[in-house]
């Protein structure tokens, strides 16, 4: 009988340890580990913003004959969480570039671009005929900016989180907001009756 017990225990131990394995998953799968801002929220916000922006009739008209140049300003984080909102705007920017409707200038690399252009001009290491010339960059016509806010409510058994992401497209010369989009997300988590 002892042997049977040993065998059963061994099988349980082997099975449980076998379940602990690292696996790759679908990066676009719905993630609901907790109510904090997560990858699914990021992807849903980016998809909604790009869908709405590209389908808005005045924007369709603006982008029908040319690809306007824009830049992304920072998104103000008004939530209580630490959220990498640059990641959200990076995804939005990528989708807009890949749609073939907008072009972007990247303000986060301006200093490094200047250093490279100065190197090409002044170092004597680069063929003058092939050196990039300063002062020929294209100015952005539009600015994308916005903010993200949240409302968190909780009681002893439930936590409810509401996120609101707002994005605006402003024409830099006139200051007119050509488009504004919003995405709302509600997530709630309830404790089970045994407190888990």
């Amino acid at each position, binding site marked *: 009988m002892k042997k049977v017990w040993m065998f059963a225990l061994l099988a*349980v131990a082997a099975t449980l340890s076998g*379940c602990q394995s690292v696996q790759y998953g679908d990066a*676009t799968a*719905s993630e609901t580990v907790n109510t904090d801002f997560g990858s*699914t929220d990021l992807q849903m916000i980016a*998809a909604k913003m790009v869908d709405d922006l590209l389908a808005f009739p005045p924007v369709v008209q603006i982008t029908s004959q040319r690809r306007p140049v824009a830049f992304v300003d920072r998104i103000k984080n008004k939530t209580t969480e630490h959220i990498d909102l640059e990641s959200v705007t990076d995804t939005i920017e990528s989708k807009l570039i890949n*749609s073939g409707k907008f072009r972007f200038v990247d303000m986060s690399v301006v200093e490094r671009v200047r250093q490279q252009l100065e190197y090409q001009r002044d170092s004597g290491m680069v063929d003058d005929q092939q050196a990039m010339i300063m002062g020929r960059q294209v100015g952005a016509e539009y600015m994308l900016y916005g903010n993200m806010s949240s409302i968190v409510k909780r009681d002893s058994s439930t936590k409810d989180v509401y996120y609101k992401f707002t994005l605006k497209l402003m024409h830099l010369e006139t200051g007119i907001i050509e488009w504004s989009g919003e995405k709302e997300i509600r997530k709630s988590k309830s404790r089970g009756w045994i407190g888990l």
Partner: protein
Amino acid sequence: MKKWLVLLMLPLVLAFTGCSSSNMSAIEEQEDGTRATYLKSNNSLLYSRLGIRDPKTTMAGDLMRAQATLENRWKFKLDFQYKVKWFNADGFEIAPEGRPWTTVVMPGRTQLNVQATAPNPTATRFEIWVQE
């Protein structure tokens, strides 16, 4: 003693079932050709409980926009995820990781409009994939 053995083996059985993943067979072909064209799933039970109505497209400039109405044919609520996939004229999926699976909860006998804009002007058709 036998009871103890059964109790001991129970987690083993549960663990095995917990580790396995259900992999349903391919899409069940329906008489309704429209449904089979626009709605896809690898879960035959979910697929049988969902219907699709009025799939339509319009153009926003040269970008295709799609809309379809998902219908919960079951009398109980359905908790599932959907994803809109876009394809070009050659049948290649455009930006396969471009859209997330979106979770929805549909009460019994209700409808939900799903909309999406194509990622770029090469899109010519769309499919709505559903999974649990």
